[in-house]
């Protein structure tokens, strides 16, 4: 995109700036639309599972329900409790919303269609997702009210606990792919299963890790059965209790943007991203972004499915699952996967070799350093 703006006669730094702004808008605006539609889909799925009709009044099939809700919320009065800490009270929803959008910068929608194709993409996602706890914690504290504060404490403990196991699961994927770049991780999944299935889910060592990752992503986004931060029978509405109007809407949008992000991560890390499910020539006629979105929305359907069918966990059970089940399990799998890779991949004598540029030659294939030698200059 930068080249296009340069060809339109722009200065290079200006072209980079304009291209970034256009790229950000091209991701954020469809994302907001997707969030609005996804809330509608969510309610329709719960309704179908509960044998109800769901929203069906606003627009055809109730399709415009989310926009009507948005308008309603927009026209409400913003109430700031007089005992609250005003600055932080208003900052909290903004942080939640911004952080939910930030992580999308490194998500590849198709081969090469990514805003920032950075080497540390997965670490960036981990870093950004660890920030989303601040919005909730600040909101709970600044409300100066008991229930939001309890909710904030629960949220902080829950998100830190599950981030640990998510970190180890990501290590497993990174070990297999050999890179932190999300596009490269997707490319490494091409033909991974039996030479024609795209994706890591087929791998017997990684499939259990996907199951753990899926459950952890439910906990990380505070969805049922782990929605203890907004358990209405215990905490009114959790950290959002004192919020109204747009501040409340920002929490809402951020929450769903985070859920979509987790669905996209499930797709990218274990189900081959934009690649079709199996390596067959005619499946490539469908554009990659369609595969990516199909898989992402399938995972969103699974999120709603879980929400409609699984009862809420008790808080001590939640902590037990995170620390006593998922953490040891993912640690053992890091060990198993490293062992398996040592056994299979590192037997290959050419695996760990890097080409070294020798003066007077073109560089590649001329001189090669292997194994531990390659780090000695």
């Amino acid at each position, binding site marked *: 995109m930068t080249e296009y703006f340069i060809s339109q006669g722009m200065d290079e730094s200006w072209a980079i700036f304009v291209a970034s702004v256009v790229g950000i808008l091209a991701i954020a605006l469809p994302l907001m639309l997707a969030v609005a539609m996804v809330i509608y889909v969510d309610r329709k799925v719960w309704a179908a599972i509960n044998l109800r009709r769901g929203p069906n009044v606003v627009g055809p099939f109730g399709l415009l329900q989310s926009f009507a809700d948005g308008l309603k919320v927009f026209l409400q009065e913003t109430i700031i409790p007089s005992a609250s800490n005003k600055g*932080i009270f208003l900052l909290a929803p903004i942080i939640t919303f911004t952080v939910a959008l930030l992580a999308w910068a490194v998500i590849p929608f198709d081969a090469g269609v990514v805003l920032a194709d950075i080497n540390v993409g997965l670490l960036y996602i981990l*870093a950004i997702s660890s920030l989303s*706890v601040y919005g909730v914690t600040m909101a709970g504290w600044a409300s100066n009210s008991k229930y939001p*504060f309890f909710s904030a404490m629960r949220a902080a403990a829950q998100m*830190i606990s599950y981030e640990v196991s998510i970190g180890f699961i990501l290590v497993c994927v990174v070990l297999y792919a050999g890179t932190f770049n999300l596009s490269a991780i997707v490319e490494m999944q091409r033909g991974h299963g039996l030479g024609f299935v795209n994706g890591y889910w087929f791998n017997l060592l990684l499939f259990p890790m996907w199951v753990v990752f899926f459950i952890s992503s439910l906990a990380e986004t505070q969805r049922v059965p782990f929605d203890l931060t907004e358990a209405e029978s215990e905490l009114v509405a959790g950290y959002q209790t004192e919020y109204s109007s747009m501040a409340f809407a920002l929490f809402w949008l951020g929450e769903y943007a985070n859920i979509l992000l987790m669905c996209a991560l499930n797709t990218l890390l274990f189900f081959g991203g934009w690649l079709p499910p199996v390596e067959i020539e005619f499946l490539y006629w469908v554009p990659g972004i369609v595969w990516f979105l199909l898989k992402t929305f399938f995972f969103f359907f699974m999120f709603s499915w879980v929400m409609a069918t699984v009862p809420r966990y008790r808080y001590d059970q939640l902590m037990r699952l995170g620390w006593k089940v998922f953490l040891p399990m993912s640690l053992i799998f890091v060990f198993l996967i490293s062992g398996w890779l040592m056994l299979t991949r590192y037997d290959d004598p050419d695996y760990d070799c890097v080409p070294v*540029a020798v003066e007077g030659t073109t560089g590649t294939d001329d001189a090669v350093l292997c194994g531990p030698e390659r*780090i000695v*200059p």
Partner: protein
Amino acid sequence: MTVFAFYLFAALMLASGAFTIFARNPVHSVLWLILAFFNAAGLMILVGAEFLAMLLVVVYVGAVAVLFLFVVMMLNIDFAEMRAGFMKNAPLGVAIAVVLLAELVLGIGAYRAGALELGVPDGSAAPLLGESNIESLGALLYGNYLFLFETSGIILLVAMIGAIVLTHREQRNTRGHQDIGKQNARRPEDATRNVSPEIGKGVEL
């Protein structure tokens, strides 16, 4: 562009560092500290250390600062008492400040006198050509410095286990321990009994 970004990050970092100290409310202090961490990460990205920048955000912002915030939010701070404590602790504080100032002056003086001779770099720590940050760091940590790296890991592990052992209290036999396996294995048949009592007669439990 880069220069603009550098001054932006540097200025924000200095400002938020100052606010960390001057903020009245300790929660505000922690939030300013987080902003300072962020801008430090931005500066690291500018010098091309993107891996370290991400680690800073993951470890300090994502874990350490959350725990800070957690603790500080729970504190119930009485400002009047804190001011009284300020006067009481002032002599000690001034003494520490003087020591720090002396160290700074000495350090700057020593630096002015000529840089320390630490030997000529032999290039063994230089990043490899065309490799990313992560690869060169990994090659060094798990290659040249494997022993030191593993040793520090073991020391940290021992410290962690020590902290747990020192603070752990066995509560299994005292009261109310739940056996999750037993709870999960419990079925409605074990806990309930269907009876159809005759009218006017109770049920033997």
